[in-house]
């Protein structure tokens, strides 16, 4: 991002294609006369979420280009206004106001839960659709409001629950969990413990690690010797340390089966020095960062559009590894926005409510160019989408898929019905 330094650009309007260019390329197109649709993007450009934010921005740009090349939304060109929220809930709320004031038709894109929860009340009050790409359980739990939806990524509760049957059947039934000692970790703890119990297994130890920790070795002796499966999920810049120290700790001695969430290694190369011990261990992936045999046509196109090579790194810099299991949500959300707006006959900000109702009316999303991660089921009552999940094994330093869950594996009873709430 060197070129961005001090370049007066980011806030300025980004068009996949200038109106003039479009008009000359496609004679008869009348973009020049129709005002563009403006989408606000709440971006983690700085702060703890920056590694994700960078890829979210690239994915949004790529999706924008594809949508505009195909004629925009309802025949109108689309532009995205990016605004940095510093991965901070206070600034996040301010950014929602700012983007709304700048005339955005809706806002999308945040990942970190505290930013979503800090911003959603403002979006609700301003009556602007707020589409999050966060995987948090905060949407379907009923904590937020009618204007907040998550149509692009399955939530943690569903992801976690869908892992249990395969883990219990293939890895073992006595599980020790290592997770961060805050809300994101608790979702893993609570829902996996519940799900593995339903499979006849049990969680024999829960090791919570404080968020301020930078080294983990001293927590590892707490892993009981009879553990069959070690389940780990860590986030933040120290995750790689955790995985390396786990390797040092077990060394050449006996070790349990190891199953982790790829969150522990998002934006990190699995072939990094010190990670050799991951060979043979398993990971949850929403979308396989390494190109698999039989990759769909839609995913091939997606991979090329966002500039990710066959191993999951940037095509221009092999050391720049993508956040492949999360960033697809931005792409899919933008395509869902297009579908929703066109279904609602969206004309102006006066139609925001119609747009939300059109999304709530959606039920299934077919696998295809707009949904390269796979087909999905959308629950209009809980505002949450559900999709397939993958389990991969590190084989020769590469993550190869060994299992793909069904959508039913991750479904649970509704905790809320947003459609009964007022706008």
């Amino acid at each position: 991002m060197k070129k961005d330094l001090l370049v007066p650009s980011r806030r300025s309007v980004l068009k996949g294609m200038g109106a003039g260019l479009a008009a000359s390329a496609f004679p008869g197109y009348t973009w020049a006369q129709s005002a563009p649709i403006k989408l606000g993007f709440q971006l983690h450009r700085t702060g703890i979420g920056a590694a994700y934010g960078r890829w979210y921005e690239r994915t949004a740009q790529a999706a924008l280009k594809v949508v505009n090349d195909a004629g925009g939304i309802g025949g109108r060109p689309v532009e995205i206004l990016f605004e940095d929220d510093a991965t901070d809930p206070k600034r996040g709320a301010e950014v929602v106001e700012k983007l709304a004031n700048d005339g955005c038709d809706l806002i999308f894109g945040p990942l970190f839960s505290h930013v979503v929860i800090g911003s959603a009340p403002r979006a609700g009050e301003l009556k602007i659709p707020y589409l999050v790409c966060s995987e948090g359980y905060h949407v379907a739990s009923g904590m937020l409001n009618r204007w907040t939806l998550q149509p692009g990524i399955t939530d943690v509760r569903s992801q976690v629950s869908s892992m249990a049957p395969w883990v219990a059947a293939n890895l073992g039934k006595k599980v020790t969990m290592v997770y961060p000692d805050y809300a994101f970790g608790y979702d893993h703890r609570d829902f996996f413990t519940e799900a593995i119990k339903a499979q006849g297994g049990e969680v024999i130890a829960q090791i919570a690690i404080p968020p301020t920790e930078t080294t983990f070795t001293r927590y590892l002796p707490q892993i009981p010797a009879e553990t069959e499966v070690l389940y780990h999920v860590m986030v933040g810049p120290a995750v790689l340390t955790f995985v390396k120290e786990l390797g040092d700790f077990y060394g050449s001695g006996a070790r349990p089966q190891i199953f982790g969430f790829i969150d522990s290694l998002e934006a990190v190369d699995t072939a990094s020095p010190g990670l050799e011990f991951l060979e043979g261990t398993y990971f949850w992936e929403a979308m396989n960062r390494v190109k698999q045999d039989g990759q769909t046509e839609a995913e091939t196109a997606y991979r090329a559009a966002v500039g990710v090579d066959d191993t999951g790194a940037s095509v221009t810099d092999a050391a720049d590894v993508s956040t492949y299991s999360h960033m697809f949500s931005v792409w899919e959300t933008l395509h869902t926005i297009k579908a929703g707006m066109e279904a609602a006959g969206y004309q102006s900000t006066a139609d925001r409510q119609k747009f939300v109702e059109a999304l709530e009316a959606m039920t299934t999303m077919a696998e295809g160019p707009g949904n390269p991660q796979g087909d999905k089921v959308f629950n209009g009552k809980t505002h949450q989408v559900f999709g397939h999940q993958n389990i991969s094994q590190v084989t020769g330093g590469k993550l190869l898929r060994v299992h793909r869950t069904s959508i039913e594996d991750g479904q649970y009873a509704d905790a809320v019905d947003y459609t009964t709430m007022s706008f």
Partner: protein
Amino acid sequence: MSFGPFLLLAVMESLVTAATLALTAVGLSLVFGTMRVVNVAHGEFFMLGAVLAWFVTTSVGGPEWIGFVAALALAPLGVAAVAALADRLVLKRLNYEPEATIVATIGLLYILQQAALTFYGPEARPVEPPFNFRIQFPWFGYSGYKLFVIFAAIAVLLAVWWGLTRSKAGLIMRATQVDRDTARAFGINVDRVYAGVFALGAALAAIAAVLIVPIQQAHYLMGGEPLLLAFITVIVGGLGSLRGTVIAALVIGLSDGLIAFFYSPTLAKILATLLVALVLVFRPQGLFGAKA
């Protein structure tokens, strides 16, 4: 795991923490002791050291240890240069006023963070350790490199101690620390001493970072934690007391590691934080400081 092996592991871990903490804190303590400057950007010098180490090791070819040795030499030099520049351009002009320097170093903190984010990026990146050697105990394995970190830190600390007490530069520094006006009267170039001390303090943080970066990764926000811990260590050890700082680093490293065995880790952090706060309340001059 039974208590014995756990204790062994906890002690080794604590020593690694204590070793790098001691280096970082001694750097902070030198700056505070000599210049009376509370350097809020100290953690960013640590971060900068780690980031530079990544740049050096990735651009130097050959076996890992060559890149590592190059980083150990170049990263602290680079960081020292940045620090000396900051001293000349900003701190000196503020005449080292305590409150003004706090604001200035907060500004510096933001500038360095942005520089790292822009030129290095938001990811955490690993650096190859100079050697991969694991010690296999009957109960667990342990990284041989971590033990090397302990010894390397001790060697650097001894060198600093020798430099301060035995060399002429150290004498000049201590003279400036005691009374800068008198030192100036005796023909000591105080400006140069200050620039040198500020650079040395930053370089020590950078050395600690180069040592730690094969264990933890370089990340643009990694400076916060060492800053906080280093501050605590310096105060507990007694301002300006090197011996106190080193002992405090040991105490803090060990207590943090051992309390975690008995309580839930977050609770342990709360207790440890309050404990240190209370030590300061009832012994504000620190464990080894003379009464201020």
